[in-house]
């Protein structure tokens, strides 16, 4: 008779417990995955919108900070030009006014007062006269820009000696009637903007920097990169600004390569005047930190769910299959003749009914067997009795036979005596 394991192997046995547990686990996992996936998707969408809004606000705020730096300089120059009546003062007075303005604002490296014909009236500088380099900037291009009496900001240029970014700012000098009498020109050292930009807080690891319309870096926390005269047009957002014409802040927040070579969510805000943009970058991992935390939390919950599903699956499948296994084991024992095997199944379901039927079958079987045994005993008894009777009759017959045979032999003897007697008589 083959063993149980051999039988299982032979039939490519697959445990119902395992099947049920796996089915339960698979179902639970699929449900968990779908639920977590949907939650993550909507969470991501929401977070992305939040990031876009935040980036736009931060970029605009940073742009306002930088713009205020330039506007402050304009305000100081305009105040000086209007309040001090520079247009009508003598040269010494004009120089004194320029001295005061230079002393008040450290970012002004040089100041020049031009008359209406763009001739130099007065000049002051932080540099020595021989080191003064503003004259090369006072050319026809600049004069063409300032002739309409409007404020003007030049493009950024790099100082040959210090490698620092500089620019020219001009304001018109007008008399009391509003007639243009000259121009106040300032050479502004933009390194004084570096600290301002370096202090702009963008999250924990985010950065802000300023680029001009050519994509040249003009302000950044890492001043060595500014001094190196880096052009950042290869960066997506900088390229967007350089290629764009208007003052639109982008509403996209896709991942791009940042100024530090990492993956960032970037945005920019153009200043208008001057024609620069402030780019703000936030590392992807920081931008999506909330999403990442959600993913981790969902993963943990999912793992916990899977763990519970495994436990529950094993428990339930065992609970379902235990009576069946009990019945199977009982059937095996009964098959081996142990009709007294107890079937301990008390389920109130179909399996319970099956067990009851099995028990009933067992009882019936036992009764049938008892009856059979009784009949057998009866039969054996009858057989014994009949055997005994038969044996008695056989003995009787044997006795009779013996008697009959004796008589026959006597008769034969007698006949033989008779014949001998007859022969003798003859």
């Amino acid at each position, binding site marked *: 008779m083959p063993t149980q394991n051999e039988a299982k192997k032979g039939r490519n046995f697959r445990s119902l417990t395992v099947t049920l547990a796996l089915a339960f686990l698979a179902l639970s996992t699929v449900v968990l995955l779908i639920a977590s996936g949907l939650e993550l998707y909507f969470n991501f969408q929401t977070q992305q919108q939040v990031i876009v809004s935040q980036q736009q606000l931060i970029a605009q705020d940073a742009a306002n900070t930088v713009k205020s730096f330039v506007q402050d300089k304009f305000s100081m120059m305009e105040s000086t030009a209007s309040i001090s009546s520079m247009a009508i003062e003598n040269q010494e007075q004009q120089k004194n006014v*320029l001295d005061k303005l230079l002393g008040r604002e450290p970012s002004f490296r040089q100041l020049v007062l031009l008359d209406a014909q763009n001739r130099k009236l007065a000049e002051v500088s932080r540099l020595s006269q021989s080191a003064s380099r503003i004259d090369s900037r006072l050319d026809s291009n600049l004069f063409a820009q300032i002739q309409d009496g409007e404020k003007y900001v030049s493009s950024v240029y790099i100082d040959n000696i210090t490698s620092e970014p500089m620019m020219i700012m001009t304001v018109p000098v007008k008399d009391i009637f509003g007639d243009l009498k000259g121009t106040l020109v300032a050479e502004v050292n933009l390194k004084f903007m570096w600290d301002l930009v370096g202090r702009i807080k963008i999250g924990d690891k985010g950065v802000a920097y300023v680029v001009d319309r050519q994509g040249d870096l003009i302000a950044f926390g890492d001043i060595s990169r500014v001094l190196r005269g880096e052009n950042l047009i290869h960066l997506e957002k900088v390229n967007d600004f350089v290629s764009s014409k208007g003052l639109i802040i982008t509403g996209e927040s896709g991942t791009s390569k940042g100024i530090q070579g990492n993956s960032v969510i970037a945005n920019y805000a153009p200043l208008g005047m001057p024609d620069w943009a402030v780019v703000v970058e936030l590392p992807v991992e920081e931008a999506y930190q909330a999403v990442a935390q959600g993913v981790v939390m969902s993963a943990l919950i999912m*793992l916990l769910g899977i763990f519970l599903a495994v436990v529950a699956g094993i428990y339930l499948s065992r609970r379902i299959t235990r009576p069946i296994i009990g019945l199977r084991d009982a059937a095996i024992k009964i098959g081996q003749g142990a009709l007294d095997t107890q079937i301990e199944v008390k389920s109130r379901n179909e399996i319970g009914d099956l067990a009851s039927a099995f028990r009933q079958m067992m009882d019936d079987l036992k009764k049938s067997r008892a009856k059979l045994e009784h009949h057998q005993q009866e039969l054996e008894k009858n057989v014994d009795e009949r055997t005994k009777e038969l044996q008695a009759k056989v003995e009787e017959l044997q006795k009779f036979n013996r008697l009959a045979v004796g008589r026959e032999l006597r008769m034969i003897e007698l006949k033989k005596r008779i014949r001998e007697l007859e022969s003798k008589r003859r």
Partner: protein
Amino acid sequence: MIRNKRTGFGLQAVLASLLVAVIFLGGCTTTQNEKVYHVGVLSGLSFVADITDGLKAKMTELGYTEGKNIVYDVQKMDFDMVAYRSALNKFVDDKVDVIVVFPTEASMEAKKATEGTGTPVVFTFALIEGMGLVDSIREPGGNITGVRYPGPDIVLKRFEIMHEMVPQAKRFLVPYQRGYPIVDPQLEALRPAAEAAGITLVELPASNATELQAYLDPRNKSADAGFDAILIIVEPLAVTPDAFGALGKFAYEHKLPIGGALMAAGDYKSIFGVNVNDIAVGRQTAPLVDKVLRGTPAGTIPVVSADSYFQINYKAAQAFGLNVSEGLLARADEIIR
């Protein structure tokens, strides 16, 4: 009852996987020993020794706490090439992470001493024009970078301010350390400017204060000292207490304004100084040191320029009977009254 062994499948494995996942997701907290950086500081001119304080203050702001994750070996001295060399060799032998050095001569010596050793150098308060210290401002090259001292421009500015404060002076005494490398470029810049302004430069090279005194002594008795003002250029002799004491005493006794570097020795004070702010320069140096410590090759970090700092000692100027213009006072970064 027969136990079906398959029903206990992989439970342990699942639990183990869960544990691993929790550990993985929760992150493993491991403590790493923080590196302690060793910085050798060669403070080669006591006149600007405060640079070290500015450096340390900014380094602290950048996250370096002295004694915790950074150790400074500060070697203080005045101009002495032998002592410079000895201190620098010690830094190299000690394998410091970076050498911070000032002024120019010590920086040049540092470049030489560290060649081929891999020890990066961050100079500060150093003139680079014509000194061969760096290849260019944007790409210093080698293993060196630093904060540039705007030397030629500062000496011209000193000259212009002296001329503006003392317009009647036509002869400027210019004392300087004999053989000091950065003097020649300054004089070369100064001479044409003086000629253009109608000023005569009375150049006085000296090895020490005694030589200066020896030059001044015979002029004490003369009605004409041979010069109308004393201009201190960027060099290490006139800013030593002994030398300035001698120059200041002579200047006050003869009512000859002395200025260029803001100095004081006893009652003798210079009328103005154009220099860089020591503390500010030290602070400007720190981010470069930070970049080097973070692994950026020093030779790829652009040189930073220090800003000039203009101070007027108004009281001293008045003592010399000078009338300082409002414009000049307005331009001053600091007025000492």
